[in-house]
Every structure is written in C-alpha cells, then in structure tokens.
C-alpha cells in the first residue's frame, strides 16, 4: 500500500484530488473565491492533463476526483472529459447549472452509468436572496436545469453556501430542503456550508475566516501549482493567494502528494472539519 493510500485509510489525508479546470465563469458571484467572471483569465488545465492527473491519482492511492473552477462547463470539451475521468475514479464536478441546454445534457448522459455527480450551487429557497449574491434569474435557471439533469439519470448534489452573518431561519432551511427534494435531490446529496472569507468574499467582507485546520487537506491542482484545498487557490485583487500553496510542481503528482502528506502528518484525524467547510 502506498504512503498516500495508507494515509487515506488512516484518515490522515482525504481521498479526493481536485482539479481547477479553469478560472473563468459566466457569472460573477459576490462570494466567489477566485474572482471568476466572464472577464477572468481562463487559466485552464488541458483535457489531457486532467486525464493524466486522474491516472496518477489512482496509482498513488487517491480514491476520488473533483473538478471545479470557475465554471467548468465554460469549457466546450468538458462533458466527454468528465466521462473519461469518472471511468478512472469516482467524480464530482461543481457547476452553477446555468449552461445546460438539452444538447449538453445529452452529452453528459454517459455519466449516468458512471460514479459521477454534478454538484450544483443553489443557496436559498427563494429567488431574491439567492440571486442577490449570484446573478439575476439564477434561481429560475438552476431550478429549471436540475430536474432535467435528474431526468436524464444524472446524480445531482446541491451545495448551499450561506452567509453566516445572515443565517437562514429554520423555516427557510425547511423550505430549501423541500425544494431540493422536489427537484429530485436526496437529503444526503444536499450540503450546506458557510461562505469562506477569501477572494471576492474577503473584498466584500463576507463569510468566515478559515483557520488552516478548517479546510480539509484535499490536494488541489491548478495551472499555478498544487494547493492545500479547493478553497486555497483563491484570487483577490487579481492576485493569486499563495498562503496555502503546497508546491508549484504538479507533475508528477507524487511530488505535491508527498509534500501535502508531510504537511498533514502529525495532525489528528478529523481536525479539518471544525467549520464544516466541504
């Protein structure tokens, strides 16, 4: 068993490797970690590189993959690549679910037979508070897309990012859960997490300041290097944050994996979950 596999089995290291497929996005959400927008630099990982990372990750003993951005579905080639990745390891891809015309959902259909999930952002049960932090008509677009994905057999998860300074009431949370069930998303596929005060959220004074122990040490590969967590390669004022950079080297994946393992060794299992940032 490799050192990574042992660390994962022992609960020292999370099993998922994340990839930042790109940094640009069709939206410009108020709490975006990466200051993504239609005008942000793309900073893509090539499809070939993503496939290599997946294969390397499996060989090292990692158990899962994640793809995030930016909005990954800004990349026209993504659906087929996702299927190839999910053929290597179980996969979750994060999306704002605003770029799912019928033709693209058809191209995603192979994922239905693979261990893959699309994690969609939906923050509130009501359009107004949801759209205030995300985009005009975002709620309506997302609520339209999710059932169409579910209908095609795709597993959908919903991530609700909430402002800890304006916590949702019990009644709001209940209605949000009723909504996701109505859309075809099970309770175990609904995650709620706080806004993390990095990137645009920091500029806007939103969210919680994570301590290093609050962010799971999930190896995260970007075009700029390997980071501690998908919440780490953030951008503020146009500058990439390097405080949670692990290594600039990402190939071979063993290099950042070994460095990350060194960093986490000695931390007790479970110490990464204090704020529930997942």
């Amino acid at each position, binding site marked *: 068993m490799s050192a990574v596999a042992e660390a994962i089995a022992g609960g020292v290291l999370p099993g998922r490797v994340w990839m930042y497929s790109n940094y640009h996005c069709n939206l410009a959400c108020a709490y975006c970690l990466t200051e993504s927008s239609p005008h942000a630099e793309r900073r893509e990982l090539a499809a070939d590189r993503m496939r290599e990372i997946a294969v390397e990750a499996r060989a090292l003993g990692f158990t899962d993959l994640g793809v995030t951005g930016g909005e990954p579905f800004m990349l026209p080639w993504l659906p087929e690549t996702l299927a190839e990745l999910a053929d290597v390891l179980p996969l979750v891809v994060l999306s704002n679910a605003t770029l799912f015309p019928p033709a693209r959902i058809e191209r995603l259909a192979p994922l239905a037979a693979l261990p893959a999930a699309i994690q969609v952002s939906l923050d509130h049960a009501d359009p107004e508070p949801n759209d205030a932090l995300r985009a005009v008509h975002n709620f309506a677009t997302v609520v339209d897309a999710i059932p169409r994905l579910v209908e095609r057999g795709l597993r959908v998860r919903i991530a609700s990012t909430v402002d800890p300074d304006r916590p949702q009431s019990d009644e709001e949370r209940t209605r949000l859960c009723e909504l996701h069930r109505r859309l075809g998303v099970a309770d175990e596929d609904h995650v709620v997490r706080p806004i993390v005060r990095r990137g645009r959220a920091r500029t806007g004074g939103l969210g919680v300041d994570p301590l290093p122990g609050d962010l799971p040490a999930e190896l995260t590969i970007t075009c700029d290097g390997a980071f501690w967590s998908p919440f780490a390669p953030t951008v503020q004022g146009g500058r990439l*944050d*390097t405080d949670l950079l*692990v*290594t*600039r080297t990402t190939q071979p994946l063993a*290099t950042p994996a070994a*460095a990350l393992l060194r960093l986490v060794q000695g931390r007790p299992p479970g110490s990464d979950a204090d704020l529930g940032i997942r």
Partner: protein
Amino acid sequence: MTVASAAGVPLVDGDQAPLLARPYYASGDPGPIVAALAHVPEILDAAMPFISVILGPSSIVVRRKELVILRTSARLGCRFCVNAHTVVAADAGLSREELRALRGEAPLEDVFVDTTERAILRWVDAVAGAGPVASTERDALGSHLPTHEVVELTMLIGATMMLNRFCTALELPTASATAGRLDELDLR
C-alpha cells in the same frame, strides 16, 4: 509582516508565505533569499537545508569558509553576497584589512601570509573562474588540506557561485541591518 522590497522580483511577504515556507517566516523577516525562493516552496524546502549544510558550521573552521565565500562573491561581483558576508566574516574575526583584500580592494598577498590560506584563495580563484581548473592548483591545496576538506571547500565555492548569480540576477536588496553594520565597519 513584510520583507525588504525593491528587488528584481516581488518578495513573498509573511501573509502570503506558502505552507512549506512558513517555518522560515516564524521569527519575522526571513531575508530576501528565502522571500524570493518562497515563490517555489518545494525548491525553498530543498535549497535551504542544502545551503545551511554547505555554508553553515562544519568541520572546517568558520574563518576559512568565510574566506572562500567572500572571495568567491567578490570575484563574481555579487553585491548582495559581498555585503552580507563582509558582516559575517567580520563577526568571524577577520580584520578590516583582510575584508578589504577579499573584496578586491587591496592586494591579497599583502594581507594573507598563511600558506594554507593562500592556497585556499588560489583555489577559489581557479574554481570561480571559467574553463578548466589546473591540477597544479588542486595538488597545491591537497598538500595543505585533507581530501574531504578539498571536496567541501570546492562545493562551498560552487554553492556560493550559485547564490551569487541568483542574488545578482534577481537584484536582491541588502537588508537594512546589514547596511547598518557595513556603515559601522566603514565598508559600505
């Protein structure tokens, strides 16, 4: 926490220090070499222990090592390293006249009379120059020092040259504390 600016590259300050670099910032300003290398933390992580072993305390007395470092840095024209190691060498007990000679501001032969030290300085000049290194110089040094010290001093010259070019190319700025000491020594 900030480190000296006005370098040829932005220097990484404390609040942006990558994880592997953080131990070097724990006591404050880590200096320009660390703050530049912090851009590539895995290189910093490997380079600093190497530099520490090569330039730090070893079986060779500090005086001889500083002869090598300062002379090499002067030959390669590295202002950052000359300034820093003028201070280190002074702290190691070298006289002002010795420092000036090593910096190329006075003839070495007038100051250094010890035959072993002269052989070491000739070896520096041979290794830190370009092209082949004459075996006669290596043999001369070998008649004064055991093989392991010849090997270590040769590695010290090479490592110093690497740092000289790194600091010169990136225009790393002399730390204000070093500049103050140079003023005290009248060797600015």
